[in-house]
């Protein structure tokens, strides 16, 4: 249970890093990439997939 919670914390942390990269990005191609890879992290945090 504790390990599972830690994994959710880790997922949230990585999601925040991706969002930070999205904000700082200058290239639209990178922005699309960040948004696509962010989706599975958010779906897991929302406990949808």
């Amino acid at each position, binding site marked *: 249970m504790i390990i599972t919670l830690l994994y959710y914390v880790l997922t949230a942390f990585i999601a925040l890093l991706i969002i930070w990269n999205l904000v700082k990005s200058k290239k639209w191609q990178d922005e699309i990439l960040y*948004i696509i890879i962010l989706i599975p992290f958010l779906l897991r945090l929302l406990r949808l997939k």
Partner: protein
Amino acid sequence: MDKALIRKFFLSVLGTALMVFAGISFYKSRHLKEPVVLGPGVTQVKKLSSYFSKLEGSINDANVYVLEGSEPGGTILILGGSHPEEPAGRLMGWIFVENAIVEKGTVIVILSANRSGTTVTRLGGAYPPDYSIPTEWGEQTFRMGDRWSNPLDQWPDPEVYIHYPSGQELAYVDVRNLNRTWPGRANGTLTEKTCFAMTQLIKDEGVDIVFDLHEAELQYPVISTIVAHQKGQDLAAMASMMISGTEDFSMGVENSPETLRGLSHREIGDHTDAVSLLLEAPEPMLDATRGRTDRALLLEGKDEFIVKAGKHGLLFERIDENGWHIDVRVGRHCSTILQILELWSEEQPEKGVLMTQVPRYAEVIANGIGYYLRNPATASASKLTFE
């Protein structure tokens, strides 16, 4: 306003829309209710947690359908949905629960042995979230499911899965595979606890035979067969001969390997008094060489690429343009169980299990599975449960 900021905003809106679209689909799939109309033979509906309280309230606290005959006899347990992406087992269980009348002995059916596994499809597999069976009163929709428990219910996976109690090292993902976690562990993962609860059920109810219903890809050598623990080899061999001689299909027999741990046909036989048998029917959708993975492939089992693989001698079961329809796969399970029970009851009359109103192979093909599914809209509340 900064152009880059506007672009980021619109791309984020697009991404959110994509996530919401996917999220709604995943949510609906996970929460789809599958109705079960209790047939005239059902005498009790228990919960799996009544055999192991730590499972209470969890997603795997499955319904346990009990069909008791008026005459004392043996007890059998039928497990559907050990691997939910192999739907023939669950559908056959539905036919039993909604139709069977037990005259002698007791039949226990679990339709969703790994209910968590029914609430997800293979990650990245582009599987359909559900499928529908046509009936005279409309159609009934079932969750597609996966081979493993949903990661939402058991996460993360270890680097290597060490099976309890043997200590054998297995693939990491099989820590969520219900057919690799027998006999289960009381303080283990959700999947291990589920197996532990079912092992307790087998012991508490004095189950004589356990049928674990599966389907296999045509490129897998263990197919169209009964995998039998050594306690059930004679029974399985005799049933194989009888089926191959009297039914319109052949059924093989495989011995349960003693060195491969965690499987129902091995561990149930080793850790309880029950005879454990695992039945395999062919399911083309599981083959790696398949084409489009959709509902039609799941239900009709037709795929030109698998047919081509067969022409190259790469398969362990025949396939032609007719495919492997779900009616055929369910019918095989029905006839195999009925044949085994006939032989068992002849050999051990005091532990016999006799039932009526369960169709055999030819009847399932002639009528279709939908013929045996009852309309939940016309069932009284007391006769309706959900999986």
